[in-house]
């Protein structure tokens, strides 16, 4: 495994070194001493397995298409934002806007996540091992968000489509977020998806949250919904 030591390097030098190694065909790269630096491994569009030995700052792995990234620590805001594909695993916690607007790929945070995880997500899968803050899944469009712990206020507020599976308790569902029946396909999906990352779906009594679709098109007869939304 190739190694990059972040100490005494600028962010540009770290990212340039990552790109250089990947373009040389290296597929296993260990990044030491990240020390919560921002904007590491952003915009990578080739497959590679990158391990950060420590915590990372804002936007780690953002706008990527292909790499597998492990963070042996916590992550700041905007973890994996906008990724198209690939897998990003954070061993501890993540800040606001984790996996914001992702279009594909899988993002796993084994600890807790702050507010607005999965905001505007357009595809892909997010798994949170712990609990999530307010407005998780806000304006979610597609994809799947699995929360094994509890959720704060406004869960799934104004979501268009996509599914949220909640293993714990919710403080309050968001505007137009409704609980739907789970079916056998959901059970199979949860079992397989969670097992791939070492979780046992059978330990949780999942609730499925989807869009009530009242906000898809304006209806003047449903003023109460729109008074909140507009």
């Amino acid at each position, binding site marked *: 495994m190739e190694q990059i030591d972040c100490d005494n390097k600028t962010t540009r030098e770290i990212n340039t070194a990552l790109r250089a190694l990947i373009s040389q065909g290296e597929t296993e790269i260990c990044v030491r001493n990240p020390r919560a630096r921002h904007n590491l491994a952003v915009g990578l569009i080739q497959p590679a397995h990158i391990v950060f030995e420590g915590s990372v700052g804002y936007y780690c792995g953002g706008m990527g298409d292909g790499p597998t990234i492990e963070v042996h620590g916590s992550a700041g805001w905007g973890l994996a934002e906008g990724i198209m594909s690939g897998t990003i695993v954070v061993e501890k916690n993540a800040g606001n806007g984790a996996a914001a607007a992702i279009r594909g790929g899988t993002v796993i945070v084994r600890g807790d996540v702050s507010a607005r995880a999965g*905001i505007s997500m357009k595809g892909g899968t997010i798994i949170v091992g712990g609990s999530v803050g307010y407005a998780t899944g806000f304006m979610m469009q597609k994809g799947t968000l699995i929360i094994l712990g509890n959720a704060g206020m406004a869960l799934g507020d104004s979501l268009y*489509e996509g599914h949220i599976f909640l293993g714990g308790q919710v403080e309050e569902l968001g505007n137009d977020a409704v609980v739907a029946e789970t079916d056998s396909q959901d059970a199979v999906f949860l079992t397989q998806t969670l097992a791939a990352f070492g979780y046992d779906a059978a330990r949780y009594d999942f609730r499925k949250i989807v869009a009530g679709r009242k906000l898809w098109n304006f209806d003047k007869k449903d003023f109460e919904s729109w008074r909140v939304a507009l």
Partner: protein
Amino acid sequence: MSDLPRQSQVWNDSTIDDIQAKAELGRYRIRGFSQLRERPIPSFDDLTFLPCTLTRIPLEGYREKCNTQTVLGARFASQPIVNDIPVMITGMSFGALSYNAKVALARGARAAGTSSTTGDGGMLRAERENAKTLIYEVLPSRYGFDVHDLLAADAIELTIGQGAKPGTGGLLLGSKVSDEIAARRDLPAGVDQRSPARHPDWLGPDDMILKIEELREATSGRLPIFVKMGATRVFDDVRLAWKAGADVVVIDGMEGGTGASPDLLLEHTGIPTLAAVCEARAALEDVGGYGQMQMIIAGGIRSGVDAAKAIALGADAVYIGTAALIALNCNRPLYLDDYRALGTAPHHCHHCHTDRCPVGITTQDPDLMQRLPIDEAAERVTNFLHAMTLEIQMLARACAKADVHDLEPEDMRALTLESSMITGLPLVGTRRVFGGGPGWKRSTQD
């Protein structure tokens, strides 16, 4: 007392229409286009140029060169963009506009040696193929965001908001969210799409520093990064954009157009483009960034005259949007029955939100779109950009400038008291500035 009909100034035709329309709709009114205000706002028409006489020697209009090349993004980017002219096509989405319109704008801009810009919903492949220089918008919605498109762009525009509706997100009514548009934006077809007002992964100006760094890291520092905002608290916003490390700041005045917006935002939010450019320049001078961070001004730019005045006040370039659509054919007297069916007429149409654009520009209807042949439309855009360029050059030469960017405030005077106060230019017939102006150094005062 006469029996002639009298009308209240308060409860006039438009007020009565407005109330009764809302009494049917149960919401605010939504429409496209630009301002339809009855009361005029301060504009570039309130200024006049002072060409050379005995105190200045003009350039020979048909002999001596007048440079129009415009470089944007040299503050930090290793590959700043270089346009042949200081007029650029602003961001307008595929969704708000038809495929034919988007491609025609890119092709028309290319032929004129300038840039076009993507929009909400991402980049069309044909847009990339037809554009010489293509600016990629990164918007709060992130609809259609694709890192490969980002890497294929020539500049990045981090959009905070737009002049037509600052402080809110985009709007695309369900009638225009066709299957194709829905797929590109990852939305259900037919949904009324209200884009987020905030970016999903950052909130304030300190976060924006990191967001800009992310974009810069993802592109290895190659691409200029623009920050675009609707014109509200321009003086402070421009200073924050400077602090955040933008290469270029784009200010979009309240005359800016849109494919769909609540009517009240179009009419009652933001500040005029004339005032915006003055505040932006004052801010750049305040932080010592004038000439380092370029400024693009947008919002109701109609002609080379408007552009020249904006440049003289401190802009490096202008964006055109609505004017480019009008060059394409917007509001042209064709297909009159279709205008009538919309309840409007050529030169009065603002029905971009309906998907029934009679001339095929703001529609996703395949039949209507065919009314806009790409090659012919692109040629009209090119011709209009050429005309604007010649207008700017004519004024610059008359003011003894061998480079259009050398136009300066001293080349103009204010025609009204309020424009003198806004711009800091002396009022015609006096040598005085009636008010503080935005605060820049005025060599002509007193």
